[in-house]
Every structure is written in C-alpha cells, then in structure tokens.
C-alpha cells in the first residue's frame, strides 16, 4: 500500500512548511508540496495549511491568502470532506475563507507571544485528534500576535453545544481567546484549525520540550488508512 499523501501549502510568506513536511514524514506519510498559485491539489489525501506570515499578515492575517488560486480548489474539497488542518496562520486562513466560523484578532496583551503552552484536547472525534485521549493535556508551542479567537454569542453557543471546541488553553489563556478556545472544527470534523503548533513538537532535539504534536499526524494517518 502506498503511503498516505498529505499536501503542505506554501503561500508567499509561509514559514512553517518545512516543519509541517518533516512532521508528516516522521509519521510515515508522504509530504506533497502545494504551491499557492497552482490550481492543483495533486490528488492528496489531506491538506496541512502551515503557519507563517502569508502576505506579511498585511491587512488581516490570512485575508489575502484566502484568495489564492489554490484555495479555489481547496475550499470546495474541504467542504466535500477532505481532511484539512490549519495551524496558526493556517487557522487564520481557514476562518477568513469561512471554512471555520469566527475570527482571530489581536492578542489581548497586544504583544506577539512565543511560549510552550499547555492545551487540553476536548474533542477526539476529528480526523486530526482521534489518537488523543479525551481531556488529555499536551504541551505545544504557540507563537502569534493575533490568536485571540472571537465569534458572536450564537456561534460560540453552537460550537460548545456541538462539541466543536477541539482544544482549550490550560494553565493560563495567552491571548484572551473567548472560552479559552485554542482550536475548533467544522460540523463534519474534517477541518480543524488551531493556534498552537503541533509541527514544532515532534522531535526530541528541536522545538518544544515535548513530542505531543505527533498525535496529530498519527491521527490523520490512522483515519486515512481506515477510510
């Protein structure tokens, strides 16, 4: 059986594509580079939108990337069930593209913050979290200036009641996110966005002092193999 193929999208200004590819490879899948200007998903089984400062984060984070030619392909595919993970800038892009509800705004502390953050996994039914235990606490790096999740009260109520809050900050909210929300999913559970960086927590030698990020990639592999 050939390895699962996970597409890694690079926009101008994307930074974590190399880390994302490494994390995918370490999990045993094939990392397939996807270029923002191509209208081609290259037949991948899942897509990872990594972090960075696409288009310099100018205007609003993710606002310009959302209109990339590749997104014209990705948006309908994601709506059709293709597993998609967006971290940091990738999460911002998913919200701007309305694949996930709400928006990410300036940190309440008004500063960029880079730190190792405790996070609680609240939903283990998604394509990207099925290998975690419900309520499990993990440590992942966060590094962002605009990660404060906001949505109107009705949207928040729906997210909570449907169990679509996938991750919550534990041990202190770093950015003022409503409900301590660190990550959410869509109704179908195939699209997940979060501010923390699992791809920076997969190796002993580098990155965060944990390898908890591996769970995201073993999850998607398991999901793809069982699919």
């Amino acid at each position, binding site marked *: 059986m050939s390895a699962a193929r996970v597409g890694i999208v690079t926009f101008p200004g994307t930074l974590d594509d190399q880390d994302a590819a490494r994390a995918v490879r370490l999990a045993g899948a094939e990392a397939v580079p996807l270029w923002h200007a191509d209208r081609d998903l290259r037949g991948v089984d899942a897509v990872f939108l990594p972090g960075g400062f696409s288009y310099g984060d100018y*205007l*609003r984070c993710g*606002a*310009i990337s959302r*209109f990339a030619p590749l997104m014209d392909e990705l948006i309908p595919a994601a709506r059709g069930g293709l597993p998609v993970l967006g971290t940091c800038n990738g999460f911002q892009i998913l*919200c*701007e593209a*309305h694949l996930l*509800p*709400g*928006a990410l*705004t*300036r*940190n*309440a*502390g*008004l500063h960029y913050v880079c730190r190792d953050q405790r996070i609680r996994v609240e939903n283990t039914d998604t394509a990207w979290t099925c290998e975690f235990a419900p309520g499990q606490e993990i440590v992942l790096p966060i590094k962002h200036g605009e990660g*404060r999740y*906001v*949505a*109107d*009260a009705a949207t928040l109520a729906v997210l909570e009641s449907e169990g679509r809050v996938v991750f919550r900050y534990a041990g202190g909210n770093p950015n*003022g996110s409503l409900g301590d929300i660190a990550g959410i999913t869509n109704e179908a559970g195939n699209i997940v966005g979060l501010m923390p960086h699992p791809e920076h927590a997969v190796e002993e030698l580098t990155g965060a002092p944990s390898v908890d990020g591996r769970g995201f990639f073993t999850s998607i592999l398991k999901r793809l193999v069982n699919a």
Partner: protein
Amino acid sequence: MARVIVDVMLKPEILDPQGRAIAGALPRLGFSGVSAVRQGKRFELELDGPADEAALSDVRKMAETLLANTVIEDFSIKVEE
C-alpha cells in the same frame, strides 16, 4: 481620478483591546474626559476613473470581501471631495 475612503471598525460587540489600552493610557498621560476609544482601519483608494455608481459598487465588493472581515467588522464608504 477620485479618492474613496473605506472605514472599517470592529463591531460594537467585539472587544477591542487596542482601543481599551489607549483609553486606559490616557488618564496616565494626564488626559481626562474620554470615556471610550475604539481603533479601526482607514483605507484610501485612488481610483483611475471617477467615483461613479459602477466604481462605488466595485469598492463595496472589495470592502465586503477583502478590506473588512464582516464576521467581526463593519465598514462604511465615502467619496473624498
């Protein structure tokens, strides 16, 4: 050649930490008399042609799709004389 202004502000129900920080700093700088501050964005667009109805309808589309995120922001458009 006309200039059109698009003002984008966070919706009133969305917390504006920048505005709040400014409002908090004012008394420390010796300014009283300001009860609230909100910070938004202002875009100045130079049009190639006149700001006629067609152009303004285009600007409205730009504002809706790109300049503002209507999930959290409102916008208003005006032509600069």
